């Protein structure tokens, strides 16, 4: 393979190509290897633009050069040491989530949710947090390639110049664009204009996690692909059919918040039922959970519809087990009782029929939580179907030029499409990518892409709100935006994405309003309105009456989007790779999830390698036994087993599911074979023991029991009897935290937010296997109940609880961990000699040790991610949660400059800020009005390991399950 050399230059002279002539230039032994003529991106787009303009004899005006402005406010506001916050957005699956990005001296260091934005409400998910590290990834592609050779922009220009002229003559015949799902008005405009110029060109959209079936279902049930909008504040009884709406993945954040608002016990507490194959975050949170094979999920939906929708009463009864019937009966009665206060949800992976059934059920229930609106995405058909059409065109030789801005179709496409091979046969292909990945290996021209945080752009939020992406930093790796990639074909390559964007909104906003939009991050009240729809019961019933043929042999396969890598695009992100899966606690890889019974049937134990065979070559996967998983099925997460040469961290980590996914059945399939291969593979699990051993740790009970005995937890809180006079903390601030387990879904957004805020290093797979992960905040996940096959779940975020009587402090021989007069258990890194005695004596085991110099081998770009307010710890030093002491001090400085006390709500910890369900509160316990004081007085409050007398400052609020008495 030709070597990939980044064209480098170290001086203006060298850049100008005079190296070797200049006696002051580099000596011959340091001379760069022969390089293609280098040209920067700007010159390239200018040339391409000018050339296309000539070729097209159109687009005569030439606006002035725009400088890419990393700041929305004036740069003179930049004060060293003072971070600035900018509104921006992340776009995944075409939907925008408003972000507020913190930048220190021009480098983004932390991503938060935008509190005003409807898709975030201040919260952020795992992926939003994780994408920050991707910005600085040294493995990112930083130069143009053609057929695996480093080339210059000039070369690309030369080649494309010809092409554009040629295509223009052919009116765009053979020109195809394969785009990322998008709701961007800017992209919509560009597409229109491209079609004007190239009328025969075609656009298609690809996503490995498409919403195609939602739209097919809506088409079936509503006659048009309306989008469902959910308002959980109006839902008392919620039934999720394979819908993981509590997992902090794209688009789930506002739903999580609204759901959690009704989680406190009482009259208004909602009740969640979940039907699913594998265990999801939603399933772990559910009050009642039914495990079912994928085919049974459809049966359950049919049975539920038959009980709830009068028009479907005549449907043939489904074959359900006794447990399933009991569950469905109770659920149907509960939904009916709640009437308009109930809602049924369905996940995007379910077939259109189930979507149709759910639309019908919600209509029959008169669910107040459901409303419909016109879709915000340009292309609803973004899945294998669209890709198959394109692939067939390529095979037929109808595609001459293919421009890809979608993420890595060669990796994510189902194996049967053989898209990668097809792509290799396209005469001219252009692929814009962050990494030299699987698609880049097969594309002709590969252009480096800008990261979200380097991009100007726009997109709509889940409710249609127009949201802006602002760059926080000039492109680090010479990237080009999607807007610029497309505009270049319009002869406007010399225009920046910003000028395109500004022009689009010129009519709607003067400069003042425009600046307000940008600093807000979105246009207020730009959501798309709700529409009146009518459900077509007949069409659904007609489809439901036709029994789907389900092969009953073999195991059923269930492919799930990964909680951390999503479709795989985050596979080279060390934070996300190391973050334990919220459900399995598996880090650095994926596994074949099996129920205990299925594993027994196969004679496999945890960590045995098995072959999963379905269509093509089998996938080799380690077994992970997951109690609560449906029997007779295997679940695998997609996004792993990457083979691209650029993504070195991701390479061969986990296994690829592409061979298991067929374009007709990308999510579920029957007839899989599971064969143990007789080898084992140690799994990198961050939690190996999953039952509480009867200890009251993550306390949970049912609403009925708690109502009967509200004093249940009285003996688990307060100041235990002691011979010592407790220290008086009643003056000044008294910091404390409270975590509501009823609200916590276990999504792990807090954990990675903490990692980003506190410069927590990544230790790698081997060290995770040795239990040396460094996350200051971990989510303990326990199985509950007596049924080992089908347990309940409870999740509990645990970080340092800042004991008032801290066992770690008195054992440290060098005073490296001490108590502040505000009650913080402080860690003095530069005093620590690393005896690790503090960790031994910590009953919560929240202390983390730098077994190696984890912070030593960062590249120059990765170093930019560090929060300058937090010490980067050395080898041999203990560390742990500080209650974000740097944030406390920043607010203290601000308040003391303004000569006032700190205000309520002014101070939030990183975990609290990220938490989508607001399960974590932090503040002053001396202020009786603070939320943390309020929660500490709650009757559900208890102290973890109260009996040890450590007097933790972090209070927990017990998880209360709202049990349906019929299913108790």
């Amino acid at each position: 393979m030709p070597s990939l050399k980044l064209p480098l230059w170290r001086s203006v002279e060298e850049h100008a190509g005079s190296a070797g002539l200049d006696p002051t230039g580099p000596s011959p032994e340091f001379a760069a290897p022969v390089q293609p003529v280098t040209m920067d991106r700007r010159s390239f787009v200018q040339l391409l633009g000018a050339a296309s303009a000539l070729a097209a004899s159109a687009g005569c005006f030439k606006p002035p050069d725009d400088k890419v402005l990393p700041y929305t406010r004036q740069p003179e506001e930049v004060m060293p040491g003072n971070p600035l916050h900018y509104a921006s957005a992340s776009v995944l699956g075409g939907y925008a989530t408003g972000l507020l990005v913190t930048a220190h001296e021009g480098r983004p260091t932390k991503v938060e949710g935008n509190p005003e934005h409807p898709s975030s409400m201040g919260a952020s998910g795992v992926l939003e947090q994780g994408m920050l590290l991707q910005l600085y990834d040294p493995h990112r592609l930083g130069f143009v390639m053609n057929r695996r050779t480093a080339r210059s922009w000039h070369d690309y220009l030369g080649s494309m110049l010809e092409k554009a002229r040629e295509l223009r003559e052919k009116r765009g015949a053979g020109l195809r664009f394969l785009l990322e799902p998008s709701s961007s008005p800017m992209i919509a405009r560009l597409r229109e204009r491209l079609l004007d110029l190239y009328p025969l060109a075609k656009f298609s959209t690809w996503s490995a996690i498409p919403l195609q079936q939602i739209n097919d279902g809506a088409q079936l049930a509503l006659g048009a692909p309306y989008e469902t909008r959910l308002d959980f504040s109006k839902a008392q009884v919620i039934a999720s059919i394979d819908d993981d709406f509590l997992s902090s993945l794209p688009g789930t954040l506002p739903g999580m918040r609204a759901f959690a608002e009704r989680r406190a016990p009482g009259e208004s507490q909602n009740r969640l039922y979940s039907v699913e194959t594998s265990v999801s975050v939603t399933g772990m949170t559910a009050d009642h959970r039914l495990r079912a094979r994928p085919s049974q999920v459809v049966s359950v939906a049919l049975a539920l519809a038959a009980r709830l929708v009068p028009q479907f009463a005549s449907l043939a009864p489904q074959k359900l087990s006794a447990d399933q019937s009991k569950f469905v009966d109770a659920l149907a009665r509960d939904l009916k009782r709640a009437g308009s206060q109930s809602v049924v949800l369905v996940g995007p992976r379910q077939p259109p029929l189930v979507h149709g059934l759910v639309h019908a059920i919600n209509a029959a229930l008169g669910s107040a939580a459901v409303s419909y609106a016109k879709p915000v995405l340009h292309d609803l058909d973004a899945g294998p179907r669209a890709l198959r059409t394109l692939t067939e065109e390529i095979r037929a030789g109808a595609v001459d030029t293919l421009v890809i801005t979608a993420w890595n179709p060669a990796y994510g496409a189902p194996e049967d499409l053989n898209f990668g091979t097809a792509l290799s046969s396209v005469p001219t292909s252009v692929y814009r990518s962050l990494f030299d990945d699987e698609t880049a290996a097969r594309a002709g021209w590969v252009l480096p892409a800008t990261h979200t945080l380097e991009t100007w752009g726009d997109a709509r939020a889940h409710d249609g709100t127009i949201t802006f992406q602002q760059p926080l930093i000039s492109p680090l790796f010479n990237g080009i935006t999607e807007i610029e990639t497309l505009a270049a074909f319009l002869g406007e390559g010399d225009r920046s994405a910003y000028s395109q964007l500004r022009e689009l909104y010129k009519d709607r906003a003067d400069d003042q309003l425009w600046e307000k939009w940008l600093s807000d991050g979105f246009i207020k009240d730009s959501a798309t309105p709700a529409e009146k729809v009518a459900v077509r019961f007949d069409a659904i019933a007609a489809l439901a009456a036709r029994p789907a043929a389900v092969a009953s042999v073999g195991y059923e396969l269930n492919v799930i989007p990964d909680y951390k890598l999503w479709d795989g695009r985050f596979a080279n992100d060390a934070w996300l790779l190391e973050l334990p899966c919220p459900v399995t606690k598996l880090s650095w890889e994926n596994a074949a999830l099996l129920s205990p019974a299925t594993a027994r049937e196969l004679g496999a134990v945890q960590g045995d390698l098995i072959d999963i065979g379905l269509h093509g070559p089998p996938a080799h996967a380690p077994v992970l036994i997951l109690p609560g998983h449906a029997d007779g099925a295997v679940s695998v997460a997609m996004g792993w087993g990457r083979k691209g040469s650029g993504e070195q961290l991701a390479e061969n980590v986990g296994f690829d599911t592409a061979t298991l996914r067929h374009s007709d059945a990308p999510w579920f399939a029957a007839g899989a074979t599971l064969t143990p291969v007789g080898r084992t593979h140690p799994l990198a699990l961050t939690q190996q023991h999953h039952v509480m051993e009867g200890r009251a740790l993550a306390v949970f009970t049912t609403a009925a029991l708690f109502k009967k005995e509200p004093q249940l937890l009285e003996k688990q809180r307060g100041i235990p009897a002691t011979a010592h006079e407790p220290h008086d903390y009643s003056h000044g601030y008294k910091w404390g935290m409270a975590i509501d387990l009823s609200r916590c879904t276990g999504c792990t957004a807090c954990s990675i937010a903490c990692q980003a805020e506190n410069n927590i290093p990544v230790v790698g797979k081997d060290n995770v296997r040795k239990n040396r992960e460094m996350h200051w905040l971990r989510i303990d996940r326990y199985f509950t109940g007596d049924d080992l096959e089908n347990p309940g779940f409870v999740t509990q975020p645990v970080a340092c609880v800042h004991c008032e009587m801290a066992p770690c402090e008195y054992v440290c021989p060098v005073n490296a961990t001490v108590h502040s007069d505000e009650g913080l258990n402080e860690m003095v890194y530069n005093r620590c000699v690393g005896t690790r005695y503090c960790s031994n004596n910590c009953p919560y085991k929240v202390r983390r040790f730098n077994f190696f110099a984890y912070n030593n081998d960062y590249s120059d770009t990765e170093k930019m991610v560090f929060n300058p307010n937090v010490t980067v710890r050395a080898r041999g030093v203990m560390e742990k949660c500080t209650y974000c002491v740097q944030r406390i001090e920043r607010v203290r400085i601000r308040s003391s400059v303004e000569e006032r006390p700190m205000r309520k709500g002014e101070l939030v910890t990183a975990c609290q800020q990220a938490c989508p369900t607001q399960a974590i509160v932090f503040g002053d316990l001396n202020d009786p009005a603070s939320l943390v004081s309020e929660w500490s007085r709650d009757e559900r409050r208890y102290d973890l390991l109260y009996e040890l007398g450590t007097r933790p400052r972090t209070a927990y609020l017990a998880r209360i399950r709202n049990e349906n008495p019929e299913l108790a």
Partner: protein
Amino acid sequence: MAQTALEARAELDPRPLMIGEQDDGSLNKSILDFVWAKPSKGWWALFLLGMAGTGLLTMAISVTIGKGIGMWGNNIPVAWAYGIVNFVWWIGIGHAGTLISAILLLFQQKWRTSINRFAEAMTLFAVMQAGLFPILHLGRPWYAYWLFPYPATYHLWPQFKSPLMWDVFAVSTYFISSFLFWYLGLIPDLASLRDSSSTRLKRRVYGVFALGWRGSARHWHHYKIAYLLLAGLCTPLVVSVHTIVSWDFAVAILPGWHTTIFPPYFVAGAVFSGFAMVITLMVPARKVMGLKNVITARHLEAMCKVILVTSMIVGYGYAMEHFFAWYSGNEYEAHVFKNRAVGQFKYVYFMMWTCNVIIPQLFWFRWFRSNIYVMWIISVLINVGMWTERFVIVVTSLQQDYLPSSWADYHPTWVDWSLFTGTLGFFGMLFLLFLKFVPAVALSEVKELRHELEHARREHPEHAHENQPVMDLSEMEGAKP
């Protein structure tokens, strides 16, 4: 004074402390000859083995300091493992020296004279091994001096509440006093070596170390007082050092560590392992060095009895820990002890009971106490058993404490094993050098004993037979051809 004690003991145990008709000349010869003789091939072989171990130790130390504690198998929750296990094990081994030197001296147990030098040297070298580990197990060993209360410019002091702090004082005091005690006892013998030196150089070197000892009555007077005073000072150390080491655990709130029984149980365990190590080293040494006449069956048997007693104290400790775990009703404590018996290290736990409690019961029978082969094997097993005891205490308690979410297995690495075997090699090397360069038996004390025995025989001829060799050691070594 000395005679009374001697006579009182003689009634109970008539077997000799010295075999044959010895005079000062023959004692000089048997004890000093090994020093003057050229090292044998066997000595060289063992020495090279010790050197190899030392090399391995050096490499493992370099790796640990160069790369980090991550090279060990430690993790969170098992943040302490081999490092601390080895530390406690070596410190424990050191205990026999102090006990024999100080306490038995104060109790006028005459049988100690032939073995005290040996045991003291062992103590010294064991403490040297032990002292390595607290430094090596630090995340940042180059800052180990922060544990000492030195006048730092930033006015920072160590934290006196921490048992690790107490360890620093306990172990350093222990090392210093053991060294002084050993060296003080050596002075008359160094003078003997000086006087019998064959070359000028040897005479000079030993002369320097003999500190001008001339054997005058005045010297002996001061020497005896100083020795007795040091013995008095060292006596509390026998109890204090391992008590403080046990506080490293007992002061923590970890189930399995947090228990009041630890100090006596650790001290007994230390004496137990120390005596076992003395036997392990002495049985071959006395044979090779021809010291059978001064280190007799009676010495060995006395040590076996001490081992038997301490073994039962240790066994009582094990049993009581389990009893407390059950009787206290503390679920965390109960779980830890259950985990010891059925968890990842159940075999280690089983070995602990077998080696430390069950096998030493054989010493109830005189045959086992007098067969040096059996005795040697048992002593080695006890050394192994005591190592497993410390492993069980340190590792299995940490493995499964309060929150099951953090429970984890532990797997030692090659660096862990190298450090341990390396210290065995280093210890062996130091010991061989000791045997080579100074008398392994306290010559002056043995001579004093001979003198006292002879005196007693002359004064009380009716008891003379009691000090005759009723049983020759060679008879007891039944297996010997």
